[in-house]
């Protein structure tokens, strides 16, 4: 499902943290579906593009570059 896709497909660049890594994913795809595909809990991340939040129902288009930012911090309280 990841990696190179046929040329008529849209490709979305995705940056993940902890550990930091970059993926390319076939689109178009909504944020909600992208998170589900990556098996990420919507409560535990935010999606950011150019410093702004991207809502869950938005569809990512060609050459979109997004960051999936974890929001859960650890440590004793």
């Amino acid at each position, binding site marked *: 499902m990841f990696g190179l896709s046929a040329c008529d497909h849209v490709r979305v660049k995705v940056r993940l943290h902890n550990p930091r890594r970059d993926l390319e994913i076939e689109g178009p795809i909504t944020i909600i579906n992208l998170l589900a595909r990556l098996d990420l809990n919507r409560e535990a*991340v*935010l999606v950011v593009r150019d410093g702004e939040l991207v809502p*869950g129902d938005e569809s990512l288009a060609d050459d979109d570059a997004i960051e999936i930012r974890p929001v859960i*911090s*650890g440590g*004793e309280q």
Partner: protein
Amino acid sequence: MKCVTCRGPAIIDIRRHNSNFCAEHFIEQCHRQVRKAIEEFSMFEKSDKILVAVSGGKDSLAIWDLLLDLGYSVDGLYIGLGIGGYSDTSLDYARAYAKTRSLHLIEVDVPSTFGFDIPNGSRAAKRVPCSACGLSKRHLFDEEAIKGGYDVLVTGHNLDDEAAVLFGNTLHWHTEYLGRQLPVLPARDGFPRKVKPLVRLAERETAAYCIVKGIDYIVDECPMAAGNKHLGYKNALNEIEAGSPGAKHSFYFGFLDRAAEFFAAEASIDREGLGACASCGAPTTSETCAFCRLVERAGGQLPERTGVNAVSVDLGPTRSGSIQ
């Protein structure tokens, strides 16, 4: 997705409130939740001298910013824990926030003041890093708040933090901790008043608040946190939350409303026989306090004290003389 307030395009959904918000009304929502927490639990007044513990992370910078927005005057306190590059970067974020807004940030550096750092010191003392770290932070928060004459110490604990701690304490029936897990702990016997005004906001919301407000914070996780229990509890609760939005809120607030009082008596037992630490003057039930013992076992050194924290902690065997 439309904003529940203005019907404009929304940038965030908050499923437990069954609401979506645009940037402007999301910030308004955060203000409302913090104001509600402050009022509901009578946390502090505009006239109080407030100190916020700042780590450079999203929660502490968000609460500092929220309190300033709401018209409180608040100083910051940063504790340097010597966790390599993580500590350096987090200090940069705390300083940058304070500097651009001309705020007062108190800095305490553990390695240069006490001669140990958390990664090595915890190993030498045979303690889990997060437990040595938490103990050091709590001690230094208390000490600086008392020393600076602050009325209240604010920490950035959010709904996820409180629900996760409650989950852990319930799982193991740590009843002595359950009675103390409140959004407000009153000042007593050398301890400052402590409050958690972010309890009505989830972690995802405090991060979103920083992004919307353009507040830069340290995104990378502390290297010591990996695999700790607290993170495991948070993940477990988020699994539940995903299927049943509002579960974390009702778990924590239901506990406050209907259960916490049953553990209150046990929580107050540790106040018996509180005296001053022979070494630093902080309140303790032992000869020397847990922090001074940690410093010693971690191979560090206690600096010469002026005895600031010893004010009125000359309690003798009873519990008189609390600092209010």
